[in-house]
């Protein structure tokens, strides 16, 4: 089957790539775009390891077709830090040991960032429900929730 040419923007950069019509956005990111920070844990929208945003909306990139990114603004974990300056969430995850194996971390950070953009002052329950689509098998979520809450508090104070 002929490949499709897609023009999009990824982490603020104009980007073009070729993909099969049936390829998911996750396939495109990890394949032709060589952005392997988004992980595949399930390919069925149940683990959140592939979380990205499209026009600031949080999605599972495994559930979105690559061709759907045409003309839209995609953000991935690779776009979270500004140059060599980490996003406050990234910094806090490091300081508070909110990652163990790290396979869920990209998705957790992208999802947490999307949450704080929508709701800069979430309750613990709001954090837990927002992140309920991001499985982590290592941490028991405790440190992740704490890191998100603490980042939110720090960002509000600034």
């Amino acid at each position: 089957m002929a490949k499709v040419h897609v023009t999009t923007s990824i982490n603020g950069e104009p980007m073009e790539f070729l993909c099969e019509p049936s390829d998911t956005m996750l396939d495109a990111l990890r394949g032709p775009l060589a952005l392997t920070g988004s992980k595949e844990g399930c390919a069925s929208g149940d683990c959140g390891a592939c979380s990205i945003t499209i026009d600031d909306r949080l999605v599972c990139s495994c559930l979105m077709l690559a061709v759907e990114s045409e003309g839209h603004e995609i953000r991935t974990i690779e776009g979270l830090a500004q140059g060599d300056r980490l996003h406050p969430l990234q910094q806090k995850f490091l300081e508070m040991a909110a990652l163990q194996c790290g396979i869920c971390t990209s998705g957790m950070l992208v999802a947490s960032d999307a949450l704080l953009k929508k709701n800069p002052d979430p309750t613990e329950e709001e954090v837990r429900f927002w992140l309920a689509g991001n499985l982590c098998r290592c941490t028991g979520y405790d440190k992740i929730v704490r890191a998100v809450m603490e980042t939110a508090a720090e960002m509000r104070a600034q």
Partner: protein
Amino acid sequence: MNLVTNNKWIGQRTIRPDGMDKVTGRAQFAADTTMPGMIWGKVLRSPHPHARIRSIDTSKAEKLPGVKAVVTSKDIVDFPIEKGAVMLGIQDMRWMCRNVMARDKALFPGHPIAAVAATTEAIAAEACALIEVDYEVLPWSIKIDDAIKPDAPILHEFNKFDGKPSNIVGRLEHKKGDIEQGFKQADTVIERTFTTRPVHQGYIEPHACLISVAPDGKTTIWSSSQGQFMVRAMTAYLTGIPQSDIRAIPAEIGGGFGGKTIVYLEPLATLLAKKSGRPVKMVMTREEVMRATGPTSGSKSTVKIGATKDGKIVAAHGTFYLQAGAFPGSPIRGAAGCSFTPYDIPNLLSEGFDVCSNRSKVAAYRAPGAPIGAYAVECVLDEVAEALKMDPLDFRLKNAAKEGTKAAHGPVFPRIGYIETVEAAKASPHYAAPLGDGNGKLRGRGVASGFWFNAGGESSAQVNITEDGNVVVTTGHPDIGGSRAGIANICAELLGIDYRRVSVIIGDTQTVGFSNLTGGSRVLFASSMVVTQSTEKIIQTLRERAAKIWEIDPEAVKWENGAAHPVSPNAGQFEPLTLEELAEKAPAMGGPIGAGVQLNTQGADGGFGTHICDVEVDVDLGIARVIRYTAVQDVGRAIHPGYVEGQLQGGVAQGIGWALNEEYIYTKEGKVDNPGFLDYRMPVCSDLPMIDCIMVEIPNPKHPQGVKGVGEVPLVPVMAAVANAIYNALGKRFYALPMSPPKVLEKLDEPVQQAAE
């Protein structure tokens, strides 16, 4: 060995050396790796739980354009059953060679039958569908009760138990005293039978590898595993390539919990790469992970405990039947050997039975077997305490194992920290807090304890000083949960330098000495021993170098705060020489500074934990929720408290899943019916409360920093703690896991039974 005191880095929550890569998406996990010319491998799997393979015809698949190689069991080295066990660690290669690819019979749905490599994943999958397999479908069994029936279909005809072909493939027992005499002394005896369902380790990263085989046989493997040396050895055994020709490079690993201690894909990808002359990448789907990689055992346990009126346990008997899956090797040692170990019981018989059935071969899962045994034992203990009208923690204290107690599995305990965990639980704010009002829901509190052996074993390290006076540590154990952070803390502490000057690398098989698996709660215990000894050698060299420069005796030089100093003014007046200065002078003063140590580490002390769990049960919906949880554990010494807590919290979360929701559900055809994260319901963020940790630190005297393994114990008591809490809430006890909503509703409809007879 001296225990390090007044620490600058040990015990600090430093930032892990690999953290930056993991929060920015840079870290290279196995599926992230590519190579020029790479093609894709896929596995054809058996649809049947049990079937004889009469023939396999791969000719159509081979002709499909884009297909580069096809392999079947004929390509894999055979280890004939009658020739006896060929052990590699705890794995028998006779079973491994049949597990990676079915030989005469398919023994579970998902059992590999053939593998194909093609230019795209889609073509490889299409080719798999073109392979024709002639199966003779056989009767099968999955549940323990079915597998041990006299007329059960036998998986392995060669295996005999009591002289007859049987699916019972192993038995072990631990014995102490005389249980018959013991039970006679008891005033209260309670005996119960419990079942648990198979559950999966549930690591978020599916198995993956990328393998290249050069025409001269030199093989490079990038893969996700808990041990690159295990990958090298097993791949070598199964492909016939010498170990020296295989370089196994550990990718970052996205969780394992025991499930990545054996190989599934690597031998197949190696053979495909060899045949095709192209690098081959293989990545499992989630469904393949669930169907064909090791979950842990389902089980059936009977536990009988007798105690006197004053609360002393006088006898106990446990029988633990554990599913091995398709091949022998269920964790009966953990079930029979760990579950009574927190207690000093004079008369004890603990038996384990290893049972094969038509499901995928079990793999280790966090304290393999121990949580299953502890679930049964700790629930019966709760009933006995209740019958005796004793506080469950007081009952445990009264019977607690301590220094000098002889454990059923053999050893006489040195100084252990079990009592301290119970006391800390009793004294915790959690245990003192009232349960509070459930707002229409029923609340309950439960406690339970657990033990895991912990382990030492082979470990290697190399520590090198760079020319600018910094440090590179290379060890041989994949870092799953932050062990690099602990190693950096220890090395920085010993050298007296900032921990950021220490970089910690996981070496591949050809660049660092043999190191055994990351598993069994052994990595920081073992690797910090070899890193400590290597660093001590380096400090010795640094002192000698300074002594040479100062022209004094090395004994007159001490190493402190990252520099050499004269021991006392009468050794001579010299300005300290820092690590940087000595590194700079190295070429003129004897050459590079580095040291390596290989050890078979000994002296791992077992670990104990005691947990408190509060639940709230919605009696209309049958949903039990954990609303508060405290895990107390003797951690020896918390080198990096953040990652120690992380182990505790992660283990507890897995246990809560096992207790409340997780299970393999089978169709009538014997296939796993919930092979995805949606239906295999692992806890998500909104299912759990914060998980409090109390770390009791009773240093291991046989370890330079006092380290005890911490990773497995946290899973051991959880299911029992949750079950005891639910009993406390409902007044009804569950004898089967998981305690999922339909089961809770069923239970609520049952009439109340007597607490003890």
